[in-house]
């Protein structure tokens, strides 16, 4: 019962969030200077041709009518077709999404695999060489723009030592460098959080209990403290995922990957309104869903939440 209500409440909130952000974007992108009809028409078209294209696209109608029209379609789960190429928006998005999702998941995975152990060691051995290594690692991760890291990795590992392919998205090997570039920066954040969380847990009273029980230090730290310390990481992973989706735009650009980010960027540049709208809704839903999943996972792992 409680779980159902929880899910229902989250779902309502998700819908509201999506509604607000997409409405906002609806009006913002239409106020931006730029006209999809002109993109189609190009430099040499006559004004009459442009008018005709506008009429065909329906962008000559008043904003309010367009808005309600769009709203009506969305309620019927109709995302429409792109203005420029007249392809179904949903198909385009679904086609592109798996790659971006995979990239984000791999990025997160790399972040976690690297950052969590390093963060834990940093916290357990505070002010040791490990800790300083962790500090330098995380600071560099935050300080190096990901597009730079990407280009450097390409030059070193695809050009100088041709281990990985330069471009394309045909095999797993194509995703290694992008995932590293994407994961590195976020690993920094996860590392800082893990360390702080672990340090905090190690200062908690139950650690004294564990020691008083005669447990070995290993058990005290890696069993009792770690389980508690990992809890907030789940939540942050959900939020990090959002950054991954955004950061993917740049990574996709550098590594020539056909992901959602570039599709969306293209949509913005071409003023392809249905594509932008669909992208916004999709991304917001995915982001909310991931966070929702993170919350559920959190509540499964964290016994305290489950009952409340």
């Amino acid at each position: 019962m409680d779980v159902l209500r929880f899910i229902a409440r989250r779902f309502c909130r998700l819908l509201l969030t999506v509604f607000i952000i997409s409405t906002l974007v609806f009006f913002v992108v239409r106020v931006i200077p730029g006209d999809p009809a002109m993109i189609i028409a190009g430099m040499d078209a006559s004004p009459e041709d442009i008018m005709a294209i506008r009429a065909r696209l329906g962008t000559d109608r008043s904003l309010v009518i367009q808005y309600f029209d769009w709203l009506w379609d969305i309620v019927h789960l109709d995302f429409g077709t792109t203005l420029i190429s007249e392809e179904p928006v949903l198909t385009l998005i679904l086609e592109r999404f798996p790659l971006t999702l995979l990239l984000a998941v791999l990025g997160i995975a790399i972040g976690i695999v690297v950052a969590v152990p390093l963060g834990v060691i940093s916290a357990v051995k505070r002010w040791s060489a490990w800790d300083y290594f962790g500090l330098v690692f995380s600071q560099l991760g935050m300080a190096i723009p990901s597009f730079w890291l990407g280009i450097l990795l390409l030059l070193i590992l695809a050009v100088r030592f041709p281990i990985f392919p330069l471009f394309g998205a045909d095999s797993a090997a194509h995703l290694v460098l992008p995932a590293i570039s994407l994961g590195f920066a976020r690993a920094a954040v996860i590392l800082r959080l893990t360390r702080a969380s672990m340090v905090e847990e190690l200062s908690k009273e139950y650690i004294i209990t564990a020691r008083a029980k005669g447990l070995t230090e290993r058990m005290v730290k890696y069993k009792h403290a770690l389980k508690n310390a990992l809890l907030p990481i789940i939540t942050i992973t959900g939020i990090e995922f959002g950054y991954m989706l955004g950061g993917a735009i740049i990574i996709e650009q550098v590594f020539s990957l056909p992901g959602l980010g570039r599709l969306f960027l293209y949509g913005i540049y071409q003023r392809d309104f249905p594509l932008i709208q669909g992208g916004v809704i999709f991304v917001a839903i995915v982001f909310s869903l991931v966070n929702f999943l993170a919350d559920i996972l959190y509540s499964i792992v964290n016994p305290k939440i489950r009952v409340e």
Partner: protein
Amino acid sequence: MIALRKSQRVLFSLAVLFLLVLVGSAIAAPLVAPYKPTEQYLAKRFHAPSLENLLGTDNYGRDILSRIVFGSRSALIVGIVTVSLALVIGSTIGLLAGLGSRNLDSALMLFMDSVLSFPTILLAITVVSFLGYGLVQVMLALGIISSPILARLVRAETLSIKTEGYVEAGRALGTPMVKIVFKHIVPNLLGKVVVQCSIIFALSIVIEASLSYLGVGTQPPAASWGLMLKDARNYLVQAPWMAIYPGLCLALTVLAFNIIGDTLAERLNPRLTGSS
């Protein structure tokens, strides 16, 4: 252990020192920089670092050192304006949500969550497309997208400080709400806000660079590290110095802000300062 702690203090001092040098050179840029940052010397394009151009020249023969020095201005301005905007928008919303009725709280937080549910860079691009390309617009966009983080923080802190005895006591003493906010609530949430601001500051510089890479950031020929990095990426083989120095400056600046933020965070969290 104590000796190692000292090294963190050293790190902190170094970070502060670096920032002071940065601020100093930003203020005195025309005096420090050997050349005009936008002046093109087409005869000496891609010159490697030499006595004449200490850090080399770029694809227009512009002096990289001078561009870096002037670029520190835009980096600092981006940071300062972003943080200020985020502070004004975020704290106002956070305070209103924390102090207002439950419905107001829900509405504001829903709005903030909506903004947050949109990946940062996408949002920045959308906002910049709306406002037009340029440094000012980028700063506006960064300010807007950074504010939900602060709003959440301020709200959470406000909600917790609100229940502190001294706030209740203030009300019992007949202190008007506005005064309670500025005398009791704001000073006590300032610490955490400052830490968060240092992170936003650092992040905004990196995001500005990313936006410049996508072509929506600072407008050429202005000197900005992000723009320099963007240009340099095409000449990595011919002129690596075009990338190395601005990249180094950007990394060091972000590093400095993060170290300062971390140190402040530790000082402000009594749990972490404990001896264990």
